[in-house]
């Protein structure tokens, strides 16, 4: 039986990391905040914590350890929580790996990089890596200034999976004491499919590319930008994603249902089953402005770490994904560079040429057999 979680190392001092630090401090956990970005840490070190504005109140969260030294951050922590964009997973996990002990739980939120993390851990000498993740960040939040963060929403539904699948339950029992909102799924294949941003950001961004560039993003991304025909394209992406998940025997739900479960849209939209209604009736997303330019994570993260992994898994499962593939291509052309170059491919996870059977076996049983 693992020791109850009291001390948590948080990797990442952006919006997600600082929000987690603030929230979990208010819940009574001891937070040890780590980043490699000294300029992000310095203002927090100066005041010894973070000021927050959140649904659970406004205040100052005192953070006992704020450091750019990974060993210091992780010393004595029961839980090591990585809170970063997917393209930084490699960097953060490589920093954490040398100091990770067997009694620590490695929790990546959001994860949805499939076998990338085990691959990096193995490259760092951990032969039988174990970790867990959520499909989405626990917060709708932003770092609003050098010493402030704003949390507009704390998630009450997060898809949770572990690697290997046989270790999911044990890790779930630990993480759910920190985040009761996590819902247990079988493995990290089931956390990759509900990564909502990957479903809708690339098609919506492509269909609003002209407006983003012409106006510098002077419109509401979801409410104005996701019109009926854009919604139909999102629905087409979602049908392909579900077909891939089905072929790999992964549990997943339609995007609109997921969006509803996460509390982002109405019962009426849920019943319509279409993405346009889901976004048009989304109160939390209504006022979110469009990004000011196309060089933005809606393409830069959600294509290489979202659409491309669905396409890769489709190939592995023998399921065609034409809509997803065409969006990948056109997003690349519109940016003037190949988004597949640094993408999360099976090759990048050390799984080039893997068969479907071997892949599913690895996910469930890990590298120990």
């Amino acid at each position, binding site marked *: 039986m693992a020791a109850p979680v009291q001390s948590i190392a948080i990797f990442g001092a952006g919006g997600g990391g600082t929000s987690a630090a603030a929230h979990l401090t208010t819940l009574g956990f001891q937070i040890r905040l780590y980043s490699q970005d000294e300029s992000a840490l310095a203002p927090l070190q100066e005041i010894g914590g973070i000021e927050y504005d959140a649904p659970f109140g406004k205040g100052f969260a005192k953070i006992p350890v704020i450091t750019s030294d990974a060993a210091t951050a992780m010393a004595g922590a029961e839980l090591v929580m990585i809170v970063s964009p997917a393209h930084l997973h490699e960097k953060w996990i490589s920093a954490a790996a040398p100091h990770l002990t067997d009694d620590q739980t490695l929790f990546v939120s959001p994860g949805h990089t499939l076998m990338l993390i085990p691959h990096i851990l193995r490259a760092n000498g951990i032969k039988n890596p174990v970790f867990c993740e959520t499909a989405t960040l626990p917060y709708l939040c932003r770092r609003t200034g050098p010493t402030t963060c704003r949390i507009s929403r704390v998630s009450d539904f997060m898809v949770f999976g572990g690697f290997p699948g046989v270790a999911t339950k044990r890790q779930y029992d630990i993480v759910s004491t920190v985040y009761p909102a996590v819902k247990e799924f079988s493995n990290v294949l089931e956390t990759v499919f509900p990564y909502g941003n990957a479903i809708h950001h690339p098609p919506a961004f492509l*269909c609003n590319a002209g407006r983003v560039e012409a106006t510098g993003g002077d419109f509401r991304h979801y409410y104005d930008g996701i019109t009926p025909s854009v919604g139909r394209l999102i629905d087409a992406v979602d049908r392909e994603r579900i077909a891939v998940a089905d072929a790999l025997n992964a549990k997943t739900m339609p995007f609109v249902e997921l969006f509803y479960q996460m509390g982002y849209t109405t019962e009426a939209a849920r019943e319509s089953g279409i993405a346009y209604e889901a976004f048009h009736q989304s109160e939390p997303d209504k006022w979110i402005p469009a990004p000011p330019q196309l060089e933005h994570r809606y393409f830069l993260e959600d294509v290489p770490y979202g659409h491309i992994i669905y396409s890769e898994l489709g190939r592995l499962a023998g399921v065609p994904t034409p809509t997803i593939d065409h969006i990948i291509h056109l997003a690349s052309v519109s940016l003037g560079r190949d988004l597949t170059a640094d993408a999360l491919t099976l090759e990048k996870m050390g799984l080039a040429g893997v068969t479907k059977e071997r892949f599913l076996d690895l996910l469930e049983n890990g590298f120990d057999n």
Partner: protein
Amino acid sequence: MTVQKVTILGAGHGGCAAAADLTARGFEVRLHARREESLAPLREQGGIQAAGVQDGLFPVHLLTTDIEAAITGADIIMLVVPSVAHGFYAEALAPLLTPDIPVFVNPGHTGGALHFVSELRRAGYTDPVKTCETVTLTYICRKTGLASVEIFSYTKKLKFAAFPGKHAQDMFDLVKPLYPKITLVSSVLETALTNINAVFHAPGMLMNAGWIEDTGGDFLFYREGITPAVGRVIAELDAERMAVAKALGVPTASFLENFYQAGLTTLEAKDSGDISRACVESEPNWKIKSPPSLDHRYIHEDVGYGLVPFAGFGRLADVPTPTIDGIIHLTSEMMDIPYATDGLTLEAMGLGDLDAEGVLKFVEEGA
């Protein structure tokens, strides 16, 4: 033979402009429309009121909804309708047409003449037929009222080809007096692959779909909508189009070159190689607003009757067209219309069973 009696099928912008212009220049014009409502205002006024290249009220020799009356005694039939209507007119003409009356598809866009003849054959017409086409309409014009039209100019250096190609010189000599600015090109494959509307309208619509639907098209399509990213997609699409043309041995020029030659942008913009800039600096297009919805010929015609045949020619030539295919697929999902099968396929152009060499022979011989 010289043309004196011209039948114009279609009384939209182009049909009315042609009827007024050719009447003004002494031709005997018979103007046909499918619906009497289109013709009634013209009858009431006693002709078409034109401004621009021609100025005045021009009484058209015959206004009719009867296609047989319209073509009887004609020296040439000019089909001035959107690509999507070519099939309808082919079917209507099949029992009436005789081999001595050539058909001028104005404009043919991509594959207009091939499609028209294929539909004519399908409708049971077995005699020889001579057709020809221009890539775009012979006029820059716009209807300004129910019975009035503004003709800004004749289209310059307009590419013209005949099908079957063996009649090219005859057809050119026939049409040249009507439209002195046409230039004869190698074949209908060259006019087909010169269709610039398909090259830039479809990416412009796809990448501004949200803006169009959210605001009812409340922005300037070319000046604001063709941004650098949209320009990059157009450039990639254009490179695929040119690769297809090259593989088929069809002479071709870049979008920028064609756009500049058509008088639609500045030399500086052309030389910059930047399609976004060329569109932003297109003075004739400056004030042109976006379509109010996606349910518009910029998609229906320019995807279905532009990109779909481009992709078909690409398969024929064994040249990959991922950007063209992508736009076809995504607009199909968005419109819920399967353009790849509903649009102008190789089959619909009568080229379904042929290889590349067979197609080249077919466009020359007509069989």
